[in-house]
């Protein structure tokens, strides 16, 4: 080992210069890891030691329905977000970079606006006597107000809007990496625009779709504000249920168990995705 390499080794065996990460690591340790462990403990000790909280969670039709609904909403939101984001990402990828960064800035700008404000704005737009319904009735397109709020439609609209930047960002990266000449080559090979999309563009953008899709899905699973304000009682999501269990029912044990299940599912999904993308990289030469 050279003298220089020796000097770069700190006494703790960490690379030199990693001391600056200490505050952030402390924060994560104190305010994330410790509470998560406390949560896990509480879910198996409150009100008494045992797995009765988990049994209650999976034994009750109501709670299982909330779980199912949570995954349904997350899946629908993810699918719709991918469909809406793809054309935008493609446009950004083929735009001149200067113009693209302006458009992208506008998209990012929406992320800096307060989440609650944006969700309330959707309430104003979507409710029975809201702007959209009144406009459509005024134009004579519909005669009865459309049920746009307090149901899956409302939650999907509100959440897709919030999730879009998280989908567009990884997708643009993925699409920018595709040489436009590759698509010209596909066209000269005889591929119609649809064939070129399905056989070339889509497979090549899969890593971006997977990365963005997982991010949106995981964020949607734990989303609270938007489903609570735009959703209905019949399609309550897990985060809302946890809040109710803890705040209204004061059942900390059950709430902890539900929160822990959500965390475990999220981590499992993440592990699966890592493996899938990793395997594809090895086999597909991407």
């Amino acid at each position, binding site marked *: 080992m050279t003298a220089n390499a020796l000097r770069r080794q700190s006494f703790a065996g960490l690379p030199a210069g990693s001391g600056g990460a200490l505050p952030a690591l402390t924060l994560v340790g104190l305010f994330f890891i410790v509470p998560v462990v406390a949560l896990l403990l509480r879910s198996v000790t409150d009100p008494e030691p045992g797995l009765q909280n988990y049994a209650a969670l999976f034994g009750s039709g109501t709670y299982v329905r909330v779980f199912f609904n949570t995954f349904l909403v997350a899946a629908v939101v993810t699918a719709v977000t991918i469909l809406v984001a793809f054309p935008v990402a493609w446009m950004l990828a083929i735009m001149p970079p200067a113009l693209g960064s302006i458009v992208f800035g506008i998209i990012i700008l929406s992320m800096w606006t307060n989440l609650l404000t944006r969700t309330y704005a959707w309430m104003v737009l979507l409710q029975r006597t809201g702007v959209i319904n009144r406009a459509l009735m005024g134009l004579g397109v519909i005669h009865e107000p459309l049920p746009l709020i307090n149901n899956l439609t409302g939650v999907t609209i509100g959440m897709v809007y919030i999730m879009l930047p998280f989908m567009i960002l990884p997708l643009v990266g993925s699409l920018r990496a595709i*040489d436009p*000449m*590759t698509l*010209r*080559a*596909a*066209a*000269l*090979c*005889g*591929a*119609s*625009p649809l*064939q*070129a999309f399905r*056989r*070339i563009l889509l*497979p*090549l953008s899969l890593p971006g779709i997977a990365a963005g899709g997982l991010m949106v899905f995981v964020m949607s699973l734990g989303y609270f504000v938007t489903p609570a304000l735009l959703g209905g009682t019949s399609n309550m999501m897990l985060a809302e249920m946890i809040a109710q269990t803890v705040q209204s029912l004061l059942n900390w044990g059950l709430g902890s168990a539900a929160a822990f299940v959500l965390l475990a599912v999220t981590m499992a999904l993440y592990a699966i995705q890592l493996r899938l993308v990793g395997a594809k990289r090895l086999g*597909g*030469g*991407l």
Partner: protein
Amino acid sequence: MTLPFLSIRAVRKAFGAFVAVHDVTIDVPKGEFLTFLGPSGSGKSTTLYAIAGFQDPTSGDVLLEDKSLLLVPSHRRNIGMVFQRYTLFPHLSVAENVAFPLRVRRRPDAEVKRKVADMLALVRLEKFADRYPGALSGGQQQRVALARALAYDPPILLMDEPLSALDKKLRQEIQTEIRRIHRETGVTILYVTHDQEEALHLSDRIALFKEGRIEQIGTGEDLYLRPASEFVAGFIGNSNFLPAEHLETENGTAKVRLADGSIIKGVKATHALGRGQKARLMVRPEAFRLTPVPGNASLAVEIVDTAFFGDRRRVVARTGSGDEIDVRPTSDTAEPGGADAASGRQIFFDPATAFLFPA
């Protein structure tokens, strides 16, 4: 008269006020290897893109077997193309890349399999069928691209500087491959390059582009031995241009006076020049011979530098008027310089191999 196979008629491409291609007209017979040669920005690639359908010409027409291609979208033109950059599909194996044009044409599996095998044999990459493009060298990738472009038997193959990203040795190797493949398949090839050696090596005919126009079109020999302009003479091969004054033209040969005062008689008169008009005399470096004895069409020079290049020597000579001349005698001639280098020497050339262009 038979109709030309591919006919490029008065194709013009303007980008705003800038005209990239000025009314280019070329007829290409079936099976020809035609190269568009020229410096970058001379309009050669733009002309090729008009044939491929990537850029619609502002005016003019492109006819294949007397039918216009312009209204046909790229994917229905049935043209093969190899690009400058590597454009293989990274998520498909070599075999699937070659199969791609057949798959989008919904050809039966058995035919696809047979054709892919034939094509990979043609470019000698049978052993690489299951590799992915990322695991191939640049030269191998371009050979796969060639196989992919030929898999559907296109009537025309377009090649847009396909070898420019490769090193010199590999370039020559693949040039030889391309010649063989052209011979074996008989496909009509339009090839774009800025490398004159590549153009000379590959082509039946060369169209030399300059500023959006074709300066001269002909065989490599035509362009080298009978250049139509100073630009052609300067672009193809190495040339010396000596300032000269045209004295008179008689019976198709001209008499000129060079800047050092020497009179050269018997230069081919290809351009009409007036008495006393300023001109430039072009002599190829290999046309000069070194000699210790003065004679006709000989110049007294001083040897400035000499270097050995295997088959040839390169000698830099300076005339009495200070013009430097590049001389390339074969290396079996005696090395110039030595004892009498300082005392000066003579170089001479056959005036019939020289060209006179208006200055």
